[in-house]
């Protein structure tokens, strides 16, 4: 016969303070665990959402990011003659050569200090290739002018990065004429201008950092990749979908955060397991007579074991729910950090995914089991006569 659930829950209520402390401990651990996974997912989602899988991005094979990639004008010529490049309504190929650089700006707010901001020079086709860039405030920059538009994440966080201000770099003053909002991808943490202006200001000649074009048909990626392997003028470069490229830019940060975070939570969980164990052992010790009575009433050892294990699972599950609930509020928080791959500031939001919820619950159940198993065994092995006599 099973011990009723109600009985189990009531016995947790009987020791409110200890129960609450244990639940609080578990929820702290779960909070940190969830928050770390959410942060790592947030960075990954932000960068994955940056690129489109219909676009192909070309960068130098050895380059870790866009700023260390160089594509000369000769190579650009070879790339732009690939037959797989789609054409726009006006018949012009949909291809952009981007120049990507990093400039220092002063941050707004209490931490202050300077940080790096990505400035991207683009060709006119870039706006067709990346339709998410829509000017919300002010106007689009003029081609051929020292003007830039700014992503809302940068305008929010940096001094002098608002519409109407001028920024000095490359020996010139650049006017910020517009603000765009992509709804939170990597481009939202950038500034955009005319590529030929940036090439001129930074004396880049005709060379670009990366080249992006739209595929004529989605299945032509393989053909493009093949031409990069076969053509010895292109062998130092690599073609990837734009989405894959930006997703890989998140790899280091998200792995770094997960590794550090998981290392920390493993430590934490041992603490929480020990907390749960202490609570459960105390529950067994205090309730020796009660256990004896249950056994005398005819409840099997099995049932007693199950009852105590369930009690421990309830503790850990409630803890997990509280922790996750607290962590879920982090979804409304936008934070920003330097992304090692691009060496510049990237704003992202914590993202709660289904797999995080799943892993957190599994993690909590493991904690509950580890904390409750030994005490439950002790409870189940109590001898009826000795237990009843122990008062």
């Amino acid at each position, binding site marked *: 016969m099973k011990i009723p659930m109600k009985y189990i829950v009531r016995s947790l209520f009987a020791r409110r303070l200890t129960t609450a402390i244990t639940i609080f401990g578990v929820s*702290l651990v779960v909070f940190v665990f969830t928050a770390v996974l959410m942060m790592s997912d947030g960075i990954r989602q932000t960068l994955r959402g940056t690129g489109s899988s219909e676009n192909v991005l070309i960068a130098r094979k050895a380059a870790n990011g866009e700023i*260390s990639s160089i594509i000369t004008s000769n190579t650009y010529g070879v790339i732009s003659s690939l037959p797989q490049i789609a054409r726009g309504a006006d018949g012009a190929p949909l291809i952009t050569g981007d120049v990507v650089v990093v400039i220092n700006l002063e941050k707004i707010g209490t*931490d202050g*200090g300077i940080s790096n901001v990505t400035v991207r020079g683009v060709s006119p086709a870039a706006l067709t290739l990346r339709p998410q860039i829509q000017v919300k405030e002010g106007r689009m920059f003029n081609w051929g002018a020292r003007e830039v538009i700014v992503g809302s994440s940068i305008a929010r966080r940096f001094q002098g990065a608002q519409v109407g201000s001028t920024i000095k770099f490359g020996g010139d003053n650049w006017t910020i004429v517009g603000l765009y909002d992509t709804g939170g991808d990597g481009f939202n943490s950038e500034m955009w201008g005319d590529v030929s202006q940036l090439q001129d200001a930074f004396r880049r000649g005709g060379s670009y950092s990366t080249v992006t074009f739209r595929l004529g048909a989605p299945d032509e990626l393989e053909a493009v990749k093949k031409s990069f392997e076969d053509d010895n003028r292109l062998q130092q470069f690599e073609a990837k979908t734009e989405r894959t490229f930006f997703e890989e830019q998140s790899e280091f940060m998200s792995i770094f955060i997960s590794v550090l975070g998981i290392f*920390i939570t493993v430590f934490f969980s041992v*603490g929480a397991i020990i907390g749960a164990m*202490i609570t459960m052992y105390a529950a067994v010790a205090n309730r020796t007579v009660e256990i004896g009575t249950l056994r005398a009433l005819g409840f099997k050892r099995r049932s007693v074991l199950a009852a105590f294990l369930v009690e421990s699972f309830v503790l850990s599950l409630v803890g997990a729910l509280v922790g996750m609930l607290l962590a879920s509020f982090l979804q409304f928080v936008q934070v920003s950090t330097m992304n090692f791959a691009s060496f510049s500031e990237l704003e992202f939001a914590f993202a709660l995914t289904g797999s995080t919820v799943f892993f957190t619950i599994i993690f909590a159940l493991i904690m509950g089991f580890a904390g409750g198993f030994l005490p439950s065994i002790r409870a189940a092995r109590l001898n009826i006569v000795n237990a009843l006599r122990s008062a």
Partner: protein
Amino acid sequence: MKVFKLMFKNALRHKLRTFLTIVGISIAVVAFGFLRTVVTAWYAGVEMSAANRLVTRNSVSFIFPIPYAYRDRIAQIPGVETVSYSNWFGGVYIDKSQFFARMAVDPETIFDLYPEFIVPPDQLETFKKERNSCALGTDLAKQYGFKIGDVIPMEGDIYPGKWEFVVRAIYQPRDKTVDGTQFFFHWQYLDERMKAEMPGRAGDVGWYLIKIKDPNQSAVISEQVDNLFKNSRAETKTETERAFQEGFIQGTSLIITLLNFISFVIIGIIFLVLGNTMIMSARERTKEYAVLKTLGFSGKHLLGLIAGESLVISAFGGGLGLLLTYPLVGVFSLAVPKSWFPIFYVEPLTIVLAAISALAVGVLASIFPLQKALRTSIVDGLRFVG
């Protein structure tokens, strides 16, 4: 003295519980020590910087170069002792995951600027003489098994093409606070190749390293340097090496904040584990405390008894944790590539902080059960059923 005996006896009454509590506290202390060590490693570049070194870089950002021609003009400023320069080379060795800093430097001056990198004089001489030679740290040599005379091939990204360097010097870091994973080669070697292949990029350096005679002059000299190049095509920003390094890690302040926050949460967890144990012990002994009170023991004795027990447990847990921190940090620094955290050691401050927090938690954890014990009247206490 009797009170002390009772304190220890009480702590040992539930051997398993006390043992678990001590283990719990020690694990939390280890985690705290480890996290603080990671934060220390993060700031290692800042701690390593010397007060008599300035860094001059392009004012737009560190990715933009400045002309080599600035060198002589900077050297003329009074108070400047040596001017050296570097370029960030980047590049790929084996594959992209094998990261360590690679820099093109001026072989004549670089080791004068960094006396903390100790090079045998004969090796230094050969390194200076041979155009395609490189010098690297012992930690790097150990990691990849580099020996004098080895040829290291690399694939360039910022400086495209295939590159080869011959190991001619291996430097020894002066102590454990110095980075032993740096890789230096001749700036001339880089520049000659740029002249031939990308003439537009020849004659540029990444940043200047300036050694000054008097550290108190750093602000004045920085300003003089920047004024020299004001309104030129490459304006400069000069700051102390420390400020330069701080600027580098400023961008990752989010991660530092996170780590610091988590180390506070850890202290919170120690508190919960110990607090829980103390509350349970005190609750079980409600009757005993009433008996003690009846016998005439005052509140002061109860205070000593409960707080003392809590302190005994936290001291054991904290002590064990501190002992375990060293081997754990040791294992971790062996397990990850040396170039991830070039400088990884337990700072004395970390130990002090961990010890203080463990003891503070010991005192705090006893407050709640103490309050309850003092407040319960003798009659209620004797009547209490656990």
